């Protein structure tokens, strides 16, 4: 490995009113794949936004290949050879790959777009870096993995020598992650320097040469990936040891509390989003639903929780037919729902923590006295529950939107679980949470399992599913294409079902 620094950050500090996002950060990135990890709010994004010209540091220096630079804008960063691949793609769905890549820097001849030259350049780039892409394909027809490839291509087209990737694997299936990593290695071979931001430790250990850890705005240290262990990095991130191999006693499943039979659900566009799905979840077990997002999991959860009316099939909850009933009736039977999008479906961000806590049970006799909300009782219950669930909030009167992601999720958990539900539907419950908060969510779900709950866990994160589930079903294009006992499941096998390569064999 070449040890001369390509990018050096020296004493970078950046404060926002009231918080210091980054404090005296020193970082040397050589010609390598350099991972930057840290919990949410550790200062990774701020640091990268400084490097890509979106923010100016309060103090400190940026050095690029031995000379000091002051980066004034993203355009300036691009001119200096620094390119950022954002987590949320910035592509135009109706445009072709080629059009998206050249947008903003179109080769032209007397003011007319030189399409053939553009195409040739895009093709040359694809060949150069070994990225298979059809320049004429429309973005909206491409799977997520290929869209990301287009994003990378865009950055390369602008002549980037240093590529910053912000949580690039968050949206990818395992096979797509493997492809991405292959591309990244090829880019490194071709002389590019890659900065890779993530909080998935296994991936970081696999792809990175070196790993730098940030915690609360400070650089904790940089380690060589080949010498590091997951536990060590997690400890650096959190500041204390983190439990990975959960203390998970064997399942003692009881009766089936939730049974789906031939459940078909239409999606928002009238498409068949769930196609004759049958599964059952027993008391005291966690049933994991794996799958790349958009393969019907959302609609499945919405049907079970009553938000979306199923087209056909049956949903038996605690022995009662609930297909087509409304969410209130289904909840009332003892179903808790941890929605996949906590800001859209989980909380009303404008309402207070207290109001969010009682929402849904605000008409129960506990909380209503003479037609008026019994605020004192609500406060007592809410205070107790948020203490039990470790929601850190200064006052019950702050808005839900003022909480951090982890605290929002804990607030939802406290609301949903304090009533002692029999069945829990948890959709992507750890998404976007940092190590500490996801550890908490995991332990809560496992405790519910011990208490005899039936838990349906939907997740796109295989690690998470493997760690928690007793059985795993895989959804692909609306169908449950496989169901595996945890002991027989491997990431590889599930991954193949997820992308449909063995879908035929399974049926």
């Amino acid at each position, binding site marked *: 490995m070449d040890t001369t620094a390509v990018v050096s950050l020296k004493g970078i500090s950046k404060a926002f009113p009231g918080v210091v996002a980054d404090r005296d950060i020193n970082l040397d990135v050589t010609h390598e794949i350099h991972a930057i990890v840290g919990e949410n709010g550790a200062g990774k994004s701020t640091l990268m936004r400084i490097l890509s010209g979106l923010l100016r540091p309060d103090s400190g220096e940026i050095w690029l290949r031995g000379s000091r630079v002051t980066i004034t804008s993203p355009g300036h960063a691009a001119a200096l050879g620094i390119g950022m691949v954002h987590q949320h793609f910035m592509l135009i769905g109706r445009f072709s790959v080629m059009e998206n890549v050249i947008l903003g820097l179109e080769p032209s001849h007397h003011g007319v777009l030189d399409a053939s030259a553009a195409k040739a350049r895009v093709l040359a780039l694809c060949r150069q870096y070994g990225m298979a892409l059809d320049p004429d394909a429309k973005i909206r027809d491409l799977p997520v993995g290929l869209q990301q490839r287009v994003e990378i291509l865009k950055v390369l087209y602008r002549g980037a020598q240093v590529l910053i990737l912000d949580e690039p694997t968050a949206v990818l299936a395992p096979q797509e992650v493997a492809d991405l990593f292959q591309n990244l290695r090829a880019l490194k071979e071709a002389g590019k320097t890659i900065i890779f931001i993530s909080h998935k430790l296994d991936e970081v250990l696999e792809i990175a040469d070196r790993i730098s850890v940030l915690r609360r705005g400070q650089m904790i240290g940089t380690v060589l990936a080949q010498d590091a262990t997951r536990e060590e990095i997690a400890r650096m991130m959190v500041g204390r040891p983190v439990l990975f191999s959960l203390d998970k006693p064997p399942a003692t499943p009881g009766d089936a509390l939730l049974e789906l039979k031939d459940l078909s659900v239409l999606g928002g566009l009238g498409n068949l989003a769930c196609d004759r799905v049958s599964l059952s979840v027993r008391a005291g077990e966690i049933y994991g639903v794996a799958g790349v997002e958009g393969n019907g999991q959302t609609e499945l959860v919405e049907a079970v*929780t009553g938000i979306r009316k199923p087209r056909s099939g049956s949903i038996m909850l605690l022995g009662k037919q609930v297909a087509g009933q409304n*969410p209130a009736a289904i909840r009332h039977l003892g179903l808790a729902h941890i929605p996949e999008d906590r800001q859209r479906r*989980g909380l*009303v961000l404008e309402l207070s923590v207290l109001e969010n806590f009682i*929402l849904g049970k605000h008409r129960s006799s506990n909380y209503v006295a003479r037609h008026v909300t019994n605020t004192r009782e609500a406060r007592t219950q809410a205070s107790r529950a948020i203490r039990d669930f470790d929601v850190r909030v200064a006052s019950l009167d702050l808005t839900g939107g003022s909480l951090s992601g982890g605290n929002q999720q804990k607030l939802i958990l406290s609301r949903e679980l304090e009533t002692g539900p029999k069945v829990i539907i948890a959709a992507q419950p750890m998404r976007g949470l940092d190590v500490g908060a996801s550890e908490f969510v995991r332990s809560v779900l496992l405790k519910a399992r011990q208490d005899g709950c039936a838990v349906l866990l939907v997740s796109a994160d295989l690690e998470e599913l493997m760690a928690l589930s007793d059985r795993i079903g895989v959804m692909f294009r609306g169908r449950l294409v496989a169901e595996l006992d945890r002991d027989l499941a491997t990431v590889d096998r599930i991954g193949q079902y997820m992308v449909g390569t063995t879908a035929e064999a399974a049926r």
Partner: protein
Amino acid sequence: MRHSRALRLLGIVTPLAAIVFAGLIGSVVIAMAGKSPLAVYKTMVLFSLTRFDSIALILFRCTPLLISAIAVSIGFRANLFNIGVEGQYFIGSFCAAWVGFSLRGLPAIIHLPLAACAAMLGGVIWALVPALLRVRRGAHEVITTIMMNSVAFSMVHWLIYVFLDVEQTTVPGMGSVRMRTPLVLATAKMPTMHSLLNPLLAPLGLEVPRHVYLNYFFPAAIALAFLVNYFIHRTPLGLEIRAVGHNPDAAETQGIDPNSVRLKAFLLSAAVAGLVGLSDLLTYFGYLDIDFPKGYGFTGIAVALLGKNNPVGMILSAFLMSFLRRGAEGAQVLEGVPMDTAAILEGVMILAIVVASSVFTRYARAWQKREARAHADQ
């Protein structure tokens, strides 16, 4: 927590700043008309606030604006834009008038409340079509209620023709025709506050003039503002209305049917809207004619916006609007500045307040977020 007090203070300062800003723009307009802004504003203030008849008149004119704002604000809470207050109070006023002139032999204690109930019912009936169209078909209430407003005006004109006051229609010897309903019976009329206020004011040497019809709908409207606020913040349905207004998806997930809540909020808004015309109808005119005051519905939207749906805010805003109009009357007579200046002031003020409050909201949210984060890190 010490910040929350500063924030609350800032929340009060924001609309005041907008008012000052509007005043500055207004100065430019007045100066362009060739008058001295300072002199005009001085006249407006003196004319409105140092004459007791002006103050009483301002309070009288406040009443329909405040009720209208309350109606609009209930809709706003559920993220519904009830532009139909206008039509709803026209129909409501007709229903009240009808009950007022047609039911004979009732004691006042029954007749007047009955007329008010009829007004609310009229408002609800008029809102039923847009509300159902919204809830069942997703038709936007702004479009449908505007249509219903036009229908309401014409409908009331037709109803006046149907119930035309035959006895009063022709004035003997003059042959003039008054297009109006029969007079509301005394038992359905709301008394003015003179008999209560004048003995209290006498020691101060003040008197509510006989030509000012300040009546008990004014204190009722103030009470209604607080009552609705209590309902919105302290009852289960109030919570549902706010939850659906902010985030229908999350409400639905928690087992609340957003459409049913929207329907209830819409009809509640319309019921209050039905009351808007009563202060004029049951105290001042005593009949409904083709010139019954229009525009309270639209001004109510401005008052609700300016007062940010808050009871005290809306009371002050309604007062401000009435003050501006009364002041403009004074400025027109005494300074020769056209009444339209007040309309310009109103418009600029609403624009400024909308901009200022969105800036403030963003700032307050960021502030709260930081505080919560700081706490979580401890």
